[in-house]
């Protein structure tokens, strides 16, 4: 019995390793791109808000509305709706790299809102003090807002990363592979509960490790 299980696991281990790498690849690259998009958006959301250093309510409302629209799409629909855009961007609509486009588009507004809420926690008095010292808008963003909010941004990125791992399970729809796809193909379609359980165990471990690492980093940077 145990022997059978071991043989079975050995036989699918190449697939498991490949799927794990695909999940990791999709998640890491998507989170990086989503942060590159989402952090500036979050910063703009905050500084254009009422009473902030670059108050501009028109920009603020429009940007907020666009972000809300993207956030209200269920990921599976976004994945399909973005097919033409993906083709334009990466030249193909299937495969792991193609899955990164919708994952990024789904995660970026998420990051933007996370960054927004972290930056809003920054003490208004500190911003006032920086203005009084003659700091420019850029200096306030780079030297005050982002460093002061760093622990919150790290925790937000952790949550985003875990959400992206969840989304990436749907990447199989466009042939993106990954652990979720493996679980669907073997575990669900072929009733192979060993594969199903194994992928779940791997995902649980990955999520735990990411969350712990995120907490560790956030604590390290939290000087309060």
């Amino acid at each position, binding site marked *: 019995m145990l022997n059978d299980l071991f043989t079975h696991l050995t036989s699918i281990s190449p697939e498991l390793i490949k799927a794990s790498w695909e999940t990791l690849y999709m998640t890491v690259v998507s989170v990086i791109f989503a942060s590159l998009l989402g952090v500036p958006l979050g910063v703009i959301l905050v500084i254009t808000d009422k009473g902030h250093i670059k108050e501009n309510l028109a920009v603020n409302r429009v940007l907020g509305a666009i972000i809300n629209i993207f956030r209200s799409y269920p990921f599976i629909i976004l994945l399909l709706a973005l097919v033409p855009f993906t083709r334009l961007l990466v030249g193909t609509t299937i495969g792991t790299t193609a899955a990164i486009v919708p994952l990024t588009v789904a995660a970026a507004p998420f990051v933007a809102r996370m960054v927004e809420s972290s930056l809003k926690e920054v003490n208004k*008095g*500190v911003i006032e*003090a920086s203005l*009084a*010292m003659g700091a420019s808008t850029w200096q306030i963003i780079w030297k005050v807002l982002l*460093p*002061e909010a760093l622990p919150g941004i790290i925790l937000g990125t952790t949550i985003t990363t875990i959400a992206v791992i969840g989304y990436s399970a749907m990447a199989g729809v466009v042939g993106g592979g990954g652990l979720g796809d493996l679980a669907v193909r073997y575990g669900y379609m072929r009733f192979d509960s060993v594969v199903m359980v194994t992928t779940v165990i791997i995902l649980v471990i990955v999520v735990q490790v990411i969350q712990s690492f995120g907490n560790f980093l956030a604590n390290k940077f939290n000087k*309060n």
Partner: protein
Amino acid sequence: MLVIQIKDLTKIYRSGAGEVKALDHVSLRVRKGEIYGIIGYSGAGKSTLIRCVNMLEKPTSGSIKVNGQEMTSLNEGQLRVARRKIGMIFQHFNLLSSRTVFDNVAFPLEISGVPKAEIKDKVTRLLGLVGLADKAGAYPSQLSGGQKQRVGIARALANDPIVLLCDEATSALDPATTDSILALLKDINRKLDLTILMITHEMKVISEICDSVAVLEQGKIIEEGLVIDVFTQPKHPTTRRFVQTIIQTDIPDHIKKPLLQRGQGQIIRVSFIGDSAAEPVISTLVKKFDIDINILYGNIDQIQDTPFGMLMIECMGSRSNCHRAVDYLRQLGLRIEVLKDAE
């Protein structure tokens, strides 16, 4: 020389409901090297006033000159440069929690583009000046309130400001810490000949370190002058209320009433300021005018280095002698108030 010159400054906040006049034609002048205090109850407009000096609040109308430069006409870039020469400290310190004490003081220098090596020298010197040389590597959360304000002061001095603005700088501190921060400010004022403009709601702060004071009420300056004058002769009722929070300028009613009813002679109140407080006035009166003097009540106080006090005395003798005695006191330059004439 005038460091700050404010003329007809008016600030109106407009909201959906209507408008609030936070400042109403405020004018004041702060001379080089002086500590100028603005006192008022909360909502009087103090905060708005001090924030107009470095344009954190944009005035609705009026003129603000700092070191001769008109602040209201500067563009954004010019304003940033001008602000570097106006230090500011805050009630809640407003330090960057993610930076060490050293890096907090270095912050304004980084902003002005000062080279690294120079920053290190300067910050080390400033931390020495405020007595925090051993805390350079600490984070603000590891400091007490008084230490945080010292960091705030060092930070405000980093760019060698021409004026230091203090926004309720001691209001969040306990009395002992307040005294040490006030002593530090006075020390800096003397050592660096630094002009200080401060707002506060505590008369104690004014009496301990300020040279001049303005009383702000409902956006208007209702009284202004040298601290010693305002304290000894407050004119406006609000000023009197402030002065009485720390010194007794009036005789309490429960003491005054029975004395006035009981006494038979002429009862007068004599106020002394400065040197006259040390003169042997009473014995002179007795010898010169052949009257008896009964001291009913008295106190003496000190504002910074000037002693001042008040005596309530009863003159007993002939009516004309008593009157001559009062005239004599007036000639000496003392402030006399006759509470009850001789019978």
